[in-house]
């Protein structure tokens, strides 16, 4: 099975019309947008579109006409998520997206000079260390094409002069990381949220361009630390499929089990943090007590608890610990069922939680597709977006499980999706754990892995949504362009939509149930 993609090349002028017609054909989900610098060919982007009905994908590539002043039409009138993706591409490549109402920098500082992902970027333009604090932009930037063919820049203030704006973050207990929401309040009602990201952006994608493939792996665990297994799985799978390597059945099953353990781990942390955000400290500690058991299992086999470094290109790093099967059985047969019962007793059924979660932060199915909110957040609104069902990988085609979906789209539904998914994950593990096939845990690999020239895309179902890896190779031992479809970026982007009109306290519940992880947003 090859994961090579051959994007259809579309001229910049026809881009918007092509995308609109593809959307009309049923490609209604913009899975990922990748900016690329093709050197001589110019700067451009690759749009990866998916049919939500079938999971079928298509890719559209468009190159900017003018390298010195690159611009393309924005697609944010077609997909709401395009807005934030385009900001990212503008931030890194300087491609201006015409008519995007808010085309500011997103991760880098406002006073950053140049666009670092361009191949001809000169590092010496910026100081090694910035000595003054970071200016925060108060103006949304919009680029439009003037009649004389020049790109015109208009700036509009984000907040009015007399707005009561409260900073939620960057140091705040409920943003689950270093995220900064500038929140405009009317009394206690939220009327606008401007998310400011990039506080912990490490440039993993840029760093990867200078690393050999096995080195790139080391960075994946540091993105979504609650989906470390899955992120690494995605990159390994992408490289293996690009090389045409079939990993053994044993590895496939081990990876599946590990992914599911990671998912349970993530969902338990989701429950705990949500409880903590709502002031239910006891429920919070119950969750952590049970999560500890999973971390112990990881520790025995992988050596790590959070940063696991387990998947390798062509297999896994170590064979399973002799206690693995026994420990996992104890986890899925005793610890988790007992824990879930307690969670439901102390938290789910509590009338205070129910009234705070039901009907709060409702996202419709159209909203979640347009905003690209995959994972539990999407499924809570009735979108069947589980890649394990849509495009099965690893050992998911041989297990039976239910894709949990709800129709309500409120905080309660988002919460229940995760709680039910813990049960489904246990069921998946139960089907696999007793008959892990024998076989090699590591295929023989060349000392230097060189991926053949081409463009590749693979995706897995991460703990909080679709985690895609876009890989472009020129046949070297380092990737030419490596882009991750972050699960969290669309989720942070939807906060404004979900929270407006609700109370400040609901912002915390909604943020908790939407479940984003900041290191994954700030790659």
């Amino acid at each position, binding site marked *: 099975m090859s994961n090579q993609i051959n994007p259809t090349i579309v001229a910049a002028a026809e881009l918007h019309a092509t995308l609109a017609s593809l959307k009309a054909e049923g490609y209604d989900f913009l899975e990922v947008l990748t900016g690329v610098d093709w050197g001589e060919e110019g700067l451009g982007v690759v749009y990866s579109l998916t049919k939500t009905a079938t999971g079928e994908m298509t890719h559209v590539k468009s190159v900017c006409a003018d390298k010195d002043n690159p611009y393309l039409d924005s697609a944010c009138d077609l997909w709401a998520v395009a807005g934030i993706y385009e900001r990212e591409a503008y931030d890194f490549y300087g491609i201006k997206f015409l008519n995007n109402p808010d085309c500011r920098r997103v991760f880098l500082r406002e006073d950053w000079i140049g666009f670092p992902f361009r191949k001809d970027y000169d590092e010496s333009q910026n100081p090694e260390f910035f000595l003054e604090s970071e200016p925060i932009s108060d103006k949304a930037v919009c680029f439009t094409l003037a009649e004389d063919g020049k790109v015109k820049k208009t700036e509009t203030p984000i907040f009015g002069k007399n707005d009561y704006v409260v900073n939620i973050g960057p140091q705040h207990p409920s943003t689950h990381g270093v995220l900064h929401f500038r929140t405009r309040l009317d009394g*206690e009602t939220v009327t606008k949220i401007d998310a400011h990201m990039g506080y912990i952006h490490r440039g993993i994608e840029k760093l990867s361009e200078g690393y050999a493939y096995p080195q790139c792996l080391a960075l994946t665990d540091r993105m979504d630390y609650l989906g470390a297994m899955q992120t690494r799985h995605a990159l390994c799978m992408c490289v293996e499929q690009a090389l045409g390597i079939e990993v053994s059945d044993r590895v496939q099953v081990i990876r599946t089990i590990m992914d599911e353990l990671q998912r349970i781990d993530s969902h338990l942390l989701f429950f705990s943090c949500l409880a903590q955000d709502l002031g239910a*400290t006891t429920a919070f*500690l119950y969750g952590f007590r049970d999560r500890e058991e999973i971390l112990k299992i990881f520790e025995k086999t992988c050596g790590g608890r959070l940063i696991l470094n387990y998947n390798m290109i062509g297999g896994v790093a170590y064979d399973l610990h002799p206690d693995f099967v026994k420990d996992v059985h104890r986890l899925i047969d005793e610890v988790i069922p007992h824990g879930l019962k307690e969670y439901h007793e102390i938290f789910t059924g509590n009338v205070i939680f129910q009234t705070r979660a039901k009907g709060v932060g409702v996202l419709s199915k159209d909203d979640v597709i347009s905003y690209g909110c995959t994972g539990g957040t999407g499924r809570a609104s009735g979108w069947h977006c589980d890649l394990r069902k849509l495009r099965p990988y690893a050992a998911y085609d041989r297990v039976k499980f239910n894709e949990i979906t709800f129709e309500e789209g409120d905080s309660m539904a988002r919460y229940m999706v995760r709680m039910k998914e813990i049960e489904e994950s246990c069921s998946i593990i139960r089907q696999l754990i007793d008959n892990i096939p024998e076989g090699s845990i590591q295929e023989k690999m060349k000392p230097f892995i060189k991926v053949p020239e081409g463009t590749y895309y693979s995706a897995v179902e991460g703990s909080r949504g679709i985690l895609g890896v876009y890989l472009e190779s020129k046949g070297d031992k380092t990737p030419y362009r490596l882009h991750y479809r972050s699960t969290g970026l669309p989720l942070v982007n939807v906060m404004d939509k979900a929270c407006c009109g609700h109370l400040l306290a609901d912002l915390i519940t909604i943020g908790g149930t939407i479940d984003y992880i900041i290191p994954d947003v700030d790659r």
Partner: protein
Amino acid sequence: MFDFNIVTQWLDTLLMSFLPAWATVLIECVLVALAIITLYAVFAIVMIYMERKVCAWFQCRLGPDRVGPWGLLQVFCDVLKMMTKEIVNFRKTDQLLHRAAPFLVVTASMVTFSCLPWNKGAQIIDFNVGVFFFLAISSIGVVGILLAGWSANNKYSLIGAMRSGAQIISYELSIGMIMLAMICLTGTMSFSEICQQQENLGWNIIRGHVPAVLCFILYLIAGNAECNRGPFDMPEAESELTAGYHTEYSGMDFGYYYLAEYMNLFICAGIAATIFLGGWAAPLIPDWEMWNEIMLYVPGFVWFLMKVFFVLMLLLWERWTFPRLRIDQLLNLEWKYMLPMTMALLVVMAICVSFGFIWN
């Protein structure tokens, strides 16, 4: 039963024998003030330790166990740390109000603390409208909280203070109604008489049966809200407002809020014990001579403290089980449910009392 009047009268006659009247009063006032402050500090430390251990017990944890045996010295270390911490002042705060606010809070809390009847004859503030005085003084605390929020010039503090103001003023209504219902039963507003009556006639919660039990349950809810304790800790709501109205306080200024919060909880439990559970009155059962004699050997303040800690356990249980309410739900609960219920209870209690449906 041990009567504390013996001690006070002995001291009074002793001082009067060789000092003029004004000096006697002065010395007695100083002694009483020292007693209040000492008790206040001691019980704050006990409460903090208890809170930590009890919540650890609810949460399958151990709680503090490193400093001293069973972590007993942990609280002392924390108090010492808090007292030696630097007090940070920001240029844009309103200095005077910012500094005055914690004192208002802690003063209100101390004065209400001295209303508690500890033992027969051991009561610091006691006069015929004691309950009324208690309600009036406890309202001063909210002024301190509002000032703290306003003077800090911080948005979190302001929102916290606004919430706190709305919350405390609302829930005071319920507390007042519950108190009224109980006064209806007792016929007196003096704490010492309320206790004495309960020793003679039986505890109010039993005398007043159904309406009194309902009042007690509503009091536990409203009391937790009055103390800004979870599930009603919206003014602090650390996950929304970082620390609410005391965000900008540090060192001992913050310590006063912390202290007052714990002591308000103690006072809340103390008043519940006095009004519903007999205060220092022993559980006497008519015709059980042997039992009554043994019970009367136990001094009143032991009974009082046992009852207070029982109510405290109930309050902690409530605190560590529920998630936090939202501000609109909190006010709905008060204005749409609690207040009508307490009003109805007042009427029911009045009917019970006037038609003699009470157990004496």
